[in-house]
């Protein structure tokens, strides 16, 4: 079982896809000889050649657009947005085209594309290179949105995203590129059913913490603090933020009756607010013992300075305080 970062495990998944399917190809900026800005595609050019590892000019609009066109005609594109922030330059092909075509054309076409990119803050990259824009895409029917939190689920979820017949936005938090763990290199699954399933990372009975992407790791750090050792805390990693696995959340809340949601993204119209609103709209409302709470990034662009950046991103102490308040 190799020890890999999420970047390396995604590299393995990409390699497996390219080996198994000759119609699969990768396109993006600096993905060839440079190996990707974060090294995710390192070595793929040497292995698969420039027919299938396609370095593009700096042109996000056509990178996403070509994926749509290629996927409608028998190819399996996986394209990279160097930083997921630049996906805003590719909104038309993703939002108005990829997301709509299957429905709008009455089911006549599928658009099985994966658009992957590096998201999130914590590296001092400032406001235009640090965003968590996943909830933008959750708002668009027709898209699936995937947010791995570690090297293992990054590997598995990328394979599932590839197998899925829908357009998938795949957000890789930059900080998970820095952490190594043992990864089981599973084969490509037969179906994509695992997309849309949350993972119960730790079982507990006192409170449910729902999180996704790198914030799951911050939640785990908080839960490991001495102050919380007498409590039984359940941690759910959503893994896929569109669709959201409410079944798993519901089963947990029936036990714990307390809900805390943690995300790095700003609060307004976000994944966290969606989770909470679904919960309070349901029968679960009657069993909740305290009001659900959302710990999120501030409603502010990301500052560059380290001490300001960590003010905007939720820290484990913020999570600790929220848990203590609720318990």
């Amino acid at each position: 079982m190799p020890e890999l970062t999420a970047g390396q495990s995604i590299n393995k998944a990409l390699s497996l896809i390219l080996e198994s399917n000759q119609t699969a190809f990768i396109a993006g900026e600096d993905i060839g000889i440079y190996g990707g800005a974060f090294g995710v595609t390192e070595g793929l050019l040497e292995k698969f050649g420039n027919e299938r590892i396609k370095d593009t000019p700096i042109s996000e609009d056509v990178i996403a657009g070509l994926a749509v066109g290629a996927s409608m005609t028998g190819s399996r594109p996986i394209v990279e947005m160097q930083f997921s922030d630049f996906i805003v330059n590719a909104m038309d092909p993703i939002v108005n085209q990829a997301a709509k075509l299957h429905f709008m054309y009455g089911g006549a076409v599928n658009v099985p594309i994966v658009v992957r990119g590096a998201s999130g803050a914590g590296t001092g990259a400032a406001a235009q290179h640090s965003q968590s824009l996943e909830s933008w895409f959750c708002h668009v029917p027709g898209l699936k949105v995937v947010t791995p939190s570690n090297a293992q689920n990054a590997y598995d979820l990328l394979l599932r995203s590839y197998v899925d017949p829908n357009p998938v936005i795949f957000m890789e938090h930059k900080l998970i590129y820095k952490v190594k763990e043992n990864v089981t290199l599973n084969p490509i699954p037969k179906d994509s059913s695992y997309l849309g399933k949350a993972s119960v990372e730790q079982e507990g009975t006192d409170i449910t913490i729902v999180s996704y992407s790198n914030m799951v790791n911050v939640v785990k750090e908080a839960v490991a603090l001495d102050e919380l050792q007498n409590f039984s805390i359940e941690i759910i990693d959503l893994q896929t933020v569109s669709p959201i696995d409410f079944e798993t959340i519901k089963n947990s809340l029936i036990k714990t009756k307390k809900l805390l949601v943690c995300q790095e993204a700003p609060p307004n119209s976000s994944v966290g607010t969606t989770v909470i609103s679904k919960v309070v709209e349901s029968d679960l409302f009657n069993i909740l013992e305290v009001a659900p709470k959302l710990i999120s990034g501030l409603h502010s662009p990301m500052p560059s300075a380290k001490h300001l950046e960590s003010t905007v991103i939720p820290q484990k102490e913020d999570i600790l305080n929220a848990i203590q308040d609720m318990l």
Partner: protein
Amino acid sequence: MTLNLDKQLELHRMMMLIRLFEEALEEMFSRGLLHGTMHLSIGQEATAAGACLALEKEDLITSTHRGHGHCLGKGADAFKMFAELLGREDGYCRGRGGSMHIADLSNGNLGANGIVAGSLTISVGAALSFQMQKKDNIVLCFFGDGAVNEGSFHEALNLASLWDLPVLFLCENNQYGMSMASDKAVAGESIASRGNSYGIESIQIDGNDVEAVFESVTSFKNEILSSNRPKFIEAVTYRYRGHSKSDRNLYRTSDEIEYWKEEKDPIKRYIGKLMESGVSEEKLKEIDTSVKELIRDSVKKALDSPLSPITNLEEDSYA
């Protein structure tokens, strides 16, 4: 056009200031003082210095992710720039912007931009203001060779031409957009020819010849103001350092880098020219010393200044 000695020394001094500023940043980075990454323009100083010194304070620039040189050229205070990179209250953006996002409105710098081609459309808007307000100023829009393949480049050129806007588009063609060689990324004859295809007079110049840059920008500025037509310059130059701090330079040879450093370095070439025309070694030494002192004092002052206080950042997000 022959430049007087004062102007020549000013151009030389500015190139030195930009180089030493960035070398000081490199040093600070290696000491772990800086959070985040940065994009250095070492080797490209002639374009920034020549272009910015051809402008008036009231002329505007829009800049790029590789913008330290543009910022200094337009008159920024090195201390406030260091302070910005260090997250200090005295920094241009109070530690909110960092290396890639310095704006200095008081000197006519509308800001560096982390989005490739992000400033092209903004420059069009600024030029529209000048036109509507009947001002005799231009907007100089800096962008890299990588930016010419973004849709917004084409939309900006088209509209600037249609509306006769006072913009000088200045492409710093350092021959690579990150790892992508511009000759593999740009279809058609040349970058300059793209300007022509929108009916904008365009030229290609040696971007490492500081006087050539100064003269082209000066004469294009005059023509923009007299003819009300935008113009386009492609300045050919070269970046010595990696794209950012994580670049291993796998996409080019060290021979190529050495060639540019040895044969084409803008500062070395200009020193040669100045000495040939009779400028003394002492005079150059004097400039060298004063710039070094300025950098040293600015770094020290920035390191001694207080961190930006943690204010209500949500409130700060709105005007």
